[in-house]
């Protein structure tokens, strides 16, 4: 399975989690791809933390003052609303964003997330991620199951500095979907052709298997 495929699989599966009417914030990178897989009958409003709701695809007209949270050209749908950064984060922290989808470096059984720095290597900063994980009603981590070197990213305990403590609702990888409960990870879906034991071997964190486990949706 190529890396590109993995990302597409993840984005497609995450898209199924979005409900009609949801206000959704997508992180940069993989999460941004989720917008492309939204079922036609589901209408969501995208929130962009640099200051608006009603983010849409760039329509080709060049407006340097209309960008997404990654600084890339963006569009605004009819009915969009612009505001300042204090309002943008009041919306985020205040529970007015239903779902945020973010990438992750590590997630653990307690729902802790690390995705903003690797000490000694990379310190981009947390940007709006720490606010998003405490504020959004649902925090979905969309990431490949293992790191590029093959090491596990779903851990018993995050080893990198945390972005948020006990904040993750759900993890979607190309191999599995986990929900996070008070008792730890619950495997809800597994990719076709992957057996649970194989999954355990590349998932450091222990997990319970849901009695209603099913084959991964979105295919």
């Amino acid at each position, binding site marked *: 399975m190529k890396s590109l495929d993995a990302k597409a699989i993840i984005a497609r599966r995450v898209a199924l989690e979005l409900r009609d009417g949801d206000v959704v914030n997508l992180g940069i990178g993989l999460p941004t791809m989720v917008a492309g897989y939204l079922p036609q009958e589901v209408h969501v409003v995208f929130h962009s933390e640099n200051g608006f709701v009603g983010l849409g695809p760039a329509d080709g007209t060049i407006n340097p003052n209309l960008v997404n949270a990654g600084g890339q050209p963006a569009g605004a749908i009819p009915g969009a609303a612009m505001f300042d950064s204090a309002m943008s984060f009041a919306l985020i922290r205040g529970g007015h964003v239903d779902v945020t989808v973010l990438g992750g470096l590590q997630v653990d059984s307690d729902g802790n997330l690390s995705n903003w720095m690797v000490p000694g290597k990379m310190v981009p900063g947390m940007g*709006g991620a720490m606010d998003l994980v*405490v*504020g959004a009603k649902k925090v979905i981590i969309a990431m490949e199951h293992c790191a590029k070197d093959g090491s596990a990213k779903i851990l018993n305990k995050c080893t990198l500095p945390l972005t948020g403590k006990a904040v993750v609702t759900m993890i979607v990888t190309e191999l599995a979907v986990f929900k996070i409960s008070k008792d730890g990870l619950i495997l809800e879906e597994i990719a076709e052709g992957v057996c649970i034991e194989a999954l355990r071997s590349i998932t450091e964190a222990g997990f319970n298997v849901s009695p209603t486990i099913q084959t991964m949706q979105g295919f």
Partner: protein
Amino acid sequence: MSKLICIEQVAEFLYDGMVAMFGGFLGVGTPEEIIQVMIDNSVSNITLIANDTSFVDKGVGKLIANRQVTKAIVSHIGTNPSTGKQMIANEIEVELVPQGTLIERIRCGGSGLGGFLTPTGIGTMVEKGKQKLVVDEKEYLLETPLRANIAFIKAKAADRAGNLIYDKTARNFNPLIAMAADMVIAEVDEIVEIGAIDPDQVITPGILVDKIICKRGC
């Protein structure tokens, strides 16, 4: 007294060691002509308060690359490699603040509040050195106000009284920093007559703006 000044006159207000707030999100909504004056005048030892350090060739990122900034209070430095390099070499001090906390600290500084309680950063490195308080059984961090000597604003238009409107996502930090500095200088694309902006549509009231620079000259 008119608030209008020429871009060259901005130099009069700049000094080494100043604490400067800038509008902008990855360079969008930053007053680029003012940045150029700061470069031309080699203003040094700046404490920069902004959302991010932009790119090496855009917005406040130019001041970083040009080594005019000795301290940066920002939420993100990942798009400007120069910031990271200087940080590792201990040539710049970087205080990373979650974006929502950063803008709220600025709002606090401009609003006469002594601080606020936020859930953001609980259980992370952001807690370090901060007081924790419990309200209704939930834990919060006490975050404190930020202010600057000068705030540098980018706006779409100003009337001669200093009332400002913004264009789309170029608004971002600008209306908040306009409240949190001893002096406020706005670089605008257009200057209109008083009365040309509907009072209901003003975003930054003119009473907050000390000087206005029109990009098209004076």
